[in-house]
């Protein structure tokens, strides 16, 4: 079974994140970039399926040159090869353009795929829809927010867990699965894995290589644009007191004064 994992490099949520004042896109230089936590779980899920069913795990990412770090992390965990769609013209692409571009590149992956695995939500954009959008472009079933993934023959089943409850889904392969935070604990790359990753093939594609028309991606033709953005003035701290045995009563008095109780 061949599996493609979609990964995305994002700004570290533990560092301060910024938007470019010029065009409202993410300021990717201002922050530490990491392989999104949820993507590590997606890679882990793909590796576990590979271990049970054989086949190959390919990592696919779209992003600037430094997304290579995210690819290396996934390869050192055990993925077999990687495809990196990287082109200046992609800058500022909207979610619809991104989904269509990823769908096009998926079609070029050597050996084809039976399953696409992705994280259910990136921590930066939080549109949380790209996996399902990619599935829609390809006309494939999307089984999202998986807590458990099982493949039996040509059928994939997922236990989908969200705030609204649990849904059991099934579909025939090929299909797209997105995994939730609780699906697994990702493995740490071993030293051997890190060394081996350096020799694994990484194919870097430009738009032309992938057969994507540059007019279909990027800020200029994005279906949505940011007109303006500004940092919100930081909320300043209010009154701070030391508890002298009456802290709770003082909070209550504050809440009464604010008409909150």
């Amino acid at each position: 079974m061949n599996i493609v994992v979609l990964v995305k490099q994002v700004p570290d949520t533990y560092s301060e994140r910024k938007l470019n004042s010029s065009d409202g896109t993410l300021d990717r230089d201002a922050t530490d970039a990491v392989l999104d936590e949820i993507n590590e779980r997606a890679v882990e899920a793909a590796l576990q399926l590979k271990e049970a069913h054989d086949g190959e795990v390919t990592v696919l990412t779209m992003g600037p040159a430094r997304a290579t770090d995210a690819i290396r992390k996934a390869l050192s965990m055990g993925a077999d090869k990687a495809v990196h769609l990287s082109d200046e013209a992609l800058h500022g692409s909207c979610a619809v353009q991104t989904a269509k571009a990823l769908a096009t590149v998926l079609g070029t992956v050597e050996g084809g795929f039976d399953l696409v695995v992705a994280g259910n939500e990136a921590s930066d954009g939080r549109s949380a829809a790209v996996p399902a959008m990619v599935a829609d472009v390809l006309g494939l079933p999307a089984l999202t927010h998986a807590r458990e993934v099982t493949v039996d023959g040509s059928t994939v089943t997922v236990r989908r867990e969200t705030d609204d409850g649990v849904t059991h889904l099934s579909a025939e392969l090929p299909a797209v699965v997105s995994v939730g935070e609780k699906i697994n604990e990702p493995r740490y790359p071993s030293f051997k894995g890190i060394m081996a990753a350096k020799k694994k093939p990484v194919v870097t594609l430009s738009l032309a290589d992938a057969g994507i028309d540059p007019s279909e991606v990027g800020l200029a033709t994005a279906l949505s644009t940011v007109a303006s953005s500004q940092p919100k003035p930081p909320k300043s701290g209010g009154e701070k007191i030391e508890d002298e045995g009456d802290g709770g009563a003082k909070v209550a008095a504050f809440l009464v004064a604010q008409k909150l109780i």
Partner: protein
Amino acid sequence: MAEVLVLVDHLEGEIKKSTFELLTAARALGEPSAVVVGAAGTAAKLADVLKEHGAEKIYVAETDSTDFLTPEVGVLASLVEAKDPAAVLIAVSADGKEIAGRLAVRTNSGLLGDVVAVSADGVTHSVFGGAYIAEAKATTAHPVITLRPGSVEIEPAAGAGVEESVPVPASQGRAATVTSREPIVGGDRPELTEASVVVSGGRGVGSADDFQVVEALADSLGAAVGASRAAVDSGYYPHQFQVGQTGKTVSPQLYIALGISGAIQHRAGMQTSKTIIAVNKDAEAPIFEIADFGVVGDLFKVAPQLKDEIAKRKG
């Protein structure tokens, strides 16, 4: 006036509060048309309350399909084509985001996700947990907009509520099949993202058992209970209640943080709360930088005292 399609989020004959927020927000853009997709007989139960919240039209697509979310996407896509609406509004939820994304792909529309305000000029995003405000707009007709619950105050309005049956189009491509569902067993507390008061505990709570101090204060205020990532990772409280960048984003009238240091991780999920109260032993904890009222002290003394004071005032 152009129509604005509003997808009705319903479960077992009950409409979610977020749908009424959409119907209110839609009036800034045009005439709200509610779209009900569900099993036969669903719309009859929902029509009256949709009218009371301003639905001028109610499109009814009833189906017993077990296809997962694609009936909603298909119905909305065909309505977008037939009615050329000013916009499609969908509430932010796991299903809502997915329906919106797929719809945007199919109708080649701009997707404006997780917005906090809607106007004729565009939408407002609160980015990176409220650290940035961004104004955005779609460059296409009929943008697909998902609205964060709790962003808009519901204003009831009388709508004509003219019902029209619409077919569920055949699925494009293959869909996943729903084999069974288990609805979440909610407690008596309000839903975290919809609550007007949230009381959260952090690492300072110290154990799962001691979280009852947080729960007791929450119950005295009719509040939802939240937890910081540190508390969840330590196993004090279930993950579904995590507030922060990798958990829920909440924006209540009142947020009480007990034993939470206030890492960026956590602040990203709660700093747009109207009023913030913090109790922490560490006077240098960053949570105090954004708290309207802070108490440097032991949460196990302050929280029960506050609970008693609230009980007294309630008589």
